[in-house]
């Protein structure tokens, strides 16, 4: 089967490449220091990292560890002081803002903790705008928008303004906006950080669903429950990767559910 895949004319070359060795994200010696009022803050200190297509990577760590800065460097929202960065094999760390803007529009979707929707545009316009900016026809933008909003359970909300929606709904709109151009990479910075537990579960469920369909996701979170939905968890401390763990790797199947934790915590002592 795999032998056929490389020779069969029906498979486009870029599909084969995407499934192969070229990482979506590759960083070498990425460094960023914030110079504010006080002492300089070494937010990211020489990070090497590689993310393969289709991976769902969570970055966790205490606040101030630099994990959001790392995500912002990868999305071009901030520029590194030094180090190299490749996205889908293309060297991007020396891009200027205009090229980054094009790259983000086409290839990177971003969701933030506080949604960052345009407050005086309707839900529909918020989602269609990036598609139009990327060159989609109004008709195609409308179609993509309709499909995504239906998928995210927001049918009937097209004409609402962001302020009329709950936090969870706003984050789903933000997710639709981030995904409307089918980006190769979805970046999520504390996507449930300002949601209640129901909204958190909802966002988590949706991220998992898009991941299962092949979406590459990098998510910063301090919430272990969110992190455990990823198949790889990077622990970030003091600007460095302290641990990089693939979950479920060669692990024994849990016996009787999760008896260990529940035994310890909930079974009364004999």
């Amino acid at each position, binding site marked *: 089967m795999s032998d056929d895949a490389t020779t069969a004319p029906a498979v486009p070359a870029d599909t084969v490449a995407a499934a192969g060795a070229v990482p979506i994200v590759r960083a070498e010696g990425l460094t960023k220091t914030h110079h504010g009022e006080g002492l300089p803050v070494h937010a990211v200190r020489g990070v090497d990292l590689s993310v393969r297509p289709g991976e769902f990577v969570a970055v966790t760590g205490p606040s101030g560890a630099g994990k959001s800065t790392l995500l912002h460097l990868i999305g071009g929202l901030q520029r590194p002081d030094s180090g190299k960065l490749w996205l889908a094999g293309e060297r991007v760390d020396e891009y200027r803002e205009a090229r980054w803007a094009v790259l983000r529009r086409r290839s990177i979707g971003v969701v933030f903790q506080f949604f960052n929707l345009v407050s005086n545009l309707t839900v529909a316009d918020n989602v269609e705008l990036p598609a139009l900016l990327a060159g989609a026809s109004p008709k195609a933008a409308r179609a993509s928008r309709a499909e995504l909003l239906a998928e995210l359970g927001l049918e009937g909300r097209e004409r609402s303004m962001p302020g009329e929606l709950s936090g969870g709904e706003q984050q789903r709109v933000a997710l639709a906006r981030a995904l409307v151009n089918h980006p190769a990479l979805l970046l999520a910075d504390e996507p449930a950080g300002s949601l209640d537990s129901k909204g958190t579960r909802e966002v988590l469920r949706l991220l998992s669903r898009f991941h299962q369909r092949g979406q590459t996701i990098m998510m910063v979170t301090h919430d272990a429950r969110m992190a455990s939905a990823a198949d790889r968890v990077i*622990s970030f401390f003091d600007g460095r990767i302290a641990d990089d763990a693939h979950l479920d790797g060669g692990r024994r199947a849990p016996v009787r559910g999760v008896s260990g934790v529940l035994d310890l915590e909930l079974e009364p002592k004999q």
Partner: protein
Amino acid sequence: MRLALLALLTRSPAHGYELKQDLEKLLGAAYPQPNVGQIYVTLGRLEKSGLIEGEDVEQSGRPNKRTYRLTDAGREAVLAWFEETAEEPRVRDEFFMKLALAPQSGLADPIALINKQRRQYLNTMRDLSKLAAAEDRDNKISHLLIEGAMLHLQADLDWLERCQEELE
């Protein structure tokens, strides 16, 4: 399990297998289910200590089944159980001892210990998420149990983070 069985018997008399099924239905897949053997052993002990009374019921073509009912002393025991507050969950004392003794022994690196422990917790968290997804949506008790385990685990992970910040 003793008190769970006694509490179930406050409703009405029941036999061992019924009690097992009631527990399973109530607590869902998340709770480590006692096997029926454990239940019979426990019921035997409870009977010996006078908290329940057993009575054999004849069944045609099958061995007798033993039905249990709560005694007054058993009822008192259940009341006393509800009266008391439960103990706090214990801290992870074994991991804590490893962490404390690693530098003394020179045989393990504390940060490596923390990383290894974190991986285990994250994997368990993942198992819990799967369990929650697979569990019957309407079983509130079971979902609360899983959520409790997740929150404990989250606290353990937060604590590991504190350890790492202090010891790095």
